[in-house]
């Protein structure tokens, strides 16, 4: 219909109330040695070697950065196998056979408050670099690179919005670890020299506000504010979160750091806490298995490296009908379509959604402009589509197709069910040629 679409039925209510199962029984854990950002990688362990929780077992090499890989269980290294990464690629994975003893590595000793107080910006960068922390909101971008910015940061925004439907992993994390998230935020503030910290959570979750507000009172030396922001999609998009949390308008395509803002996902801040205080990398994360293609929907807390097939099995497997299954890693608006369920839980895997395939029949565009009204970047998807059909490069450039964040709202809202978002992607590829 002709209106700005901002709300998407998100199914979070049901999922929120479901308990979280801790799953520690995985027989084998898999650690990708390459991924989308890091085309090369190596392991620093040999077959048969005994490794412990938190031990360095390899490194991924990106263009201008390295990412260490840590084991999340204790056990023996037993070789390599190809598995599916959250980006949909098949990658080499180092296998560790789990002895289920969860022996902690010697390096994982907590830092005292005095030690932490003495840390300099360089120390923080090194600590975060060694912990292999990366943007856990989904970007997977190495966090230490963000810390290295030359710009002066005044305020750090903790993004706890998680606006994609179906996902509740940040929600659960805040509920269970609010205190540590705030502590992580204070480390991030110290690392960046930021005066202010703002935690953004959705208005419709007062319980999150409560726990964060309580946690905040233990850190009265820091200027931290818990901000309740809108419930709509894509409120979790960096630019909208910054706007809602601090009032600062960062133009699309600019770095937030140029405006004195730095955004971290709450899970990333939890990672700060682990790295700085505990000298530990992230070893666990929440994963939701949902969708109408799966027998029972469940939430899990699992070790990084757990094969998703184990979890699917615990959910009772797929529903049995003759429909094809759409397997999605991530949320239903922006997630990646997988052609296999042989997926490994990496740090950025938040959920697996399995849907029965329903054919979507498209109709001709009727110029209703719902897509134009709904686009959060103020693009005109219908005009971009028409320009792309004409293969008109100039028009595509003027219409700013490159600013599209692929949020999916235009496809979602179109009454003719035209797959505009896909057209945006094709148009982007086309003008890059």
């Amino acid at each position, binding site marked *: *219909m*002709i*209106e700005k*679409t901002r709300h*998407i039925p998100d199914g979070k209510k049901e999922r929120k109330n479901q308990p979280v199962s801790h799953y520690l029984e995985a027989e084998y854990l898999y650690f990708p040695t390459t991924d989308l950002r890091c085309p090369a990688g190596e392991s620093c362990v040999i077959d048969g070697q005994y490794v412990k929780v938190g031990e360095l077992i390899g490194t991924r090499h990106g263009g201008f950065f390295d990412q260490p890989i840590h084991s999340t269980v204790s056990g023996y290294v037993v070789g390599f196998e190809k598995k599916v990464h959250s980006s949909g690629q098949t990658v080499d994975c180092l296998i560790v056979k789990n002895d289920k003893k969860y022996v902690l590595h010697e390096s994982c000793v907590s830092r005292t408050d005095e030690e932490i107080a003495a840390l300099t910006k360089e120390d923080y960068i090194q600590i975060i670099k060694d912990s292999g922390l990366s943007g856990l909101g989904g970007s997977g971008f190495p966090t230490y690179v963000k810390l290295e910015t030359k710009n002066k940061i005044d305020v750090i925004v903790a993004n706890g919005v998680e606006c994609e*439907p179906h996902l509740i992993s940040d929600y659960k994390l805040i509920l269970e670890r609010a205190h540590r998230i705030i502590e992580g935020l204070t480390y991030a503030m110290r690392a960046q020299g930021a005066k202010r910290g703002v935690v953004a959570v959705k208005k419709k979750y007062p319980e999150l506000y409560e726990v964060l507000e309580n946690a905040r009172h233990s850190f009265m030396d820091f200027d931290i504010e818990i901000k309740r922001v809108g419930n709509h999609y894509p409120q979790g998009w960096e630019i909208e979160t910054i706007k809602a949390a601090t009032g600062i308008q960062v133009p699309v395509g600019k770095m937030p750091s140029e405006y004195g803002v730095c955004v971290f996902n709450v899970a990333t801040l939890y990672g700060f806490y682990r790295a700085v205080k505990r000298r530990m990398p992230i070893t666990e994360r929440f994963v939701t298995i949902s969708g109408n293609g799966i027998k029972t929907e469940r939430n899990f807390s699992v070790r990084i490296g757990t094969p998703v097939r184990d979890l699917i099995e615990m959910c009772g497997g*797929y529903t049995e009908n003759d429909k*094809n*299954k*759409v*397997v*999605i890693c991530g949320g*239903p*608006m*922006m*997630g*990646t*379509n*997988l*052609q*296999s369920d042989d997926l490994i839980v990496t740090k950025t895997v938040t959920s697996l*959604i399995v*849907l029965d*395939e329903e054919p*979507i*029949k498209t*109709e*001709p*565009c*009727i*110029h*209703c*402009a719902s897509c*134009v*009204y709904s*686009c959060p970047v*103020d693009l*005109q998807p*219908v*005009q971009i589509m028409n*320009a792309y059909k004409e293969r008109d490069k100039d*028009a595509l450039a*003027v*219409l700013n197709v490159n600013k599209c964040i*692929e949020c*999916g*709202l235009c*496809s*979602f*809202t*179109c*009454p*003719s*069910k035209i*797959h505009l*978002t*896909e057209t945006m*992607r094709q148009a982007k590829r086309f003008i890059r040629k």
Partner: protein
Amino acid sequence: MNYAKQTAPYVRKENSTKRMMVDVLIALLPVVVFAIYQFGWDAVVRLVLSAVIFILGEVVTTFYRTKPHPSVKERKEKFKVRFKTLTINNITAPLVSAIIYALIIPSNLSLYVVAVGALFGILVVKAAFGGLGSNIFNPAAAGRVFIGLSFTSQFAYTGIDAVVGATPLGAAKDALLNIPNLLQNYTVLDLFLGNIPGSMGEISALLIIIGGIYLFARRAADFRVTLSTLVSFSVMMAIAAIAVNGNVVDIVVYQLLAGGLLFGAVFMVTDPVTSPVTKPGRWIYGLLVGSIVAFIRLFGSYPEGVVFAILLANIFVPLIDYYKWSKNRYSVKFIVGYVVALALLGFIVLVGLGGLN
């Protein structure tokens, strides 16, 4: 189990083009019922005739526009492939056009002329441009203008547009000043309820407003175009009233309620296919329609002022949507431009009616 290939997003909103069309049909229903109540079989026959022509025209042309793959040789197979491309929208969309078309013609217009207009609307204006979603002009409006121009003598016009609109330039002032007298024949309440002569659907303002409220509440139409049309039209008429020293309220209310303006503003300019696709664009489009209707009524002599205005404004839509300046944000430039345009057009009305003398 097989893996399906799809790309994000994987979910879609619960809406459809079909629902939008059906909403328009529902909104038209009270007006249709009233037309049948007022004009009886005359209305029924004309409604059915236009519906049949529009739907058949759409179905047949869509059917033959689809080119089955060259590998499909057999006639029966070809037929099947073509048949499959037809959707419910090939019925609802032309039905909307047909009903609107039937409602803007006089109830006693000869059936032959009705048919010619309908055929022109569906075949030349819609199908020739590529069918649903591709037409530049509003099919109903174009059909109406076509017969209006080709069969002028057929229109034994008793409608108020005839009184309001068919006045030569020099007499415009007298006509405007005459409105209070007219209002003694027909009260504002009559205008509102539809106790007046006119085209079938245009006469009951109340039912049109009810339909409009439904449309806007269901978001099946964009209120911006309608509002902009009515605002710009009222401004022009108010200035005209001032120019001739008339009663501003009387004249504006009379002009708003009489004739095809309200019907056009609610059901015709809101047609998304022929509207621009940005919010400012839609305001500009409404401004064009509103002021052209006012100009035709004040200075022209076409009883079909509204449909004419819509067709004229349709010409500007691709220009409004031109990618170099179309923006969905309201900019200061746009607001200033809108107000200045309104003021300029108003000034022309003022001068044209001798308000400065």
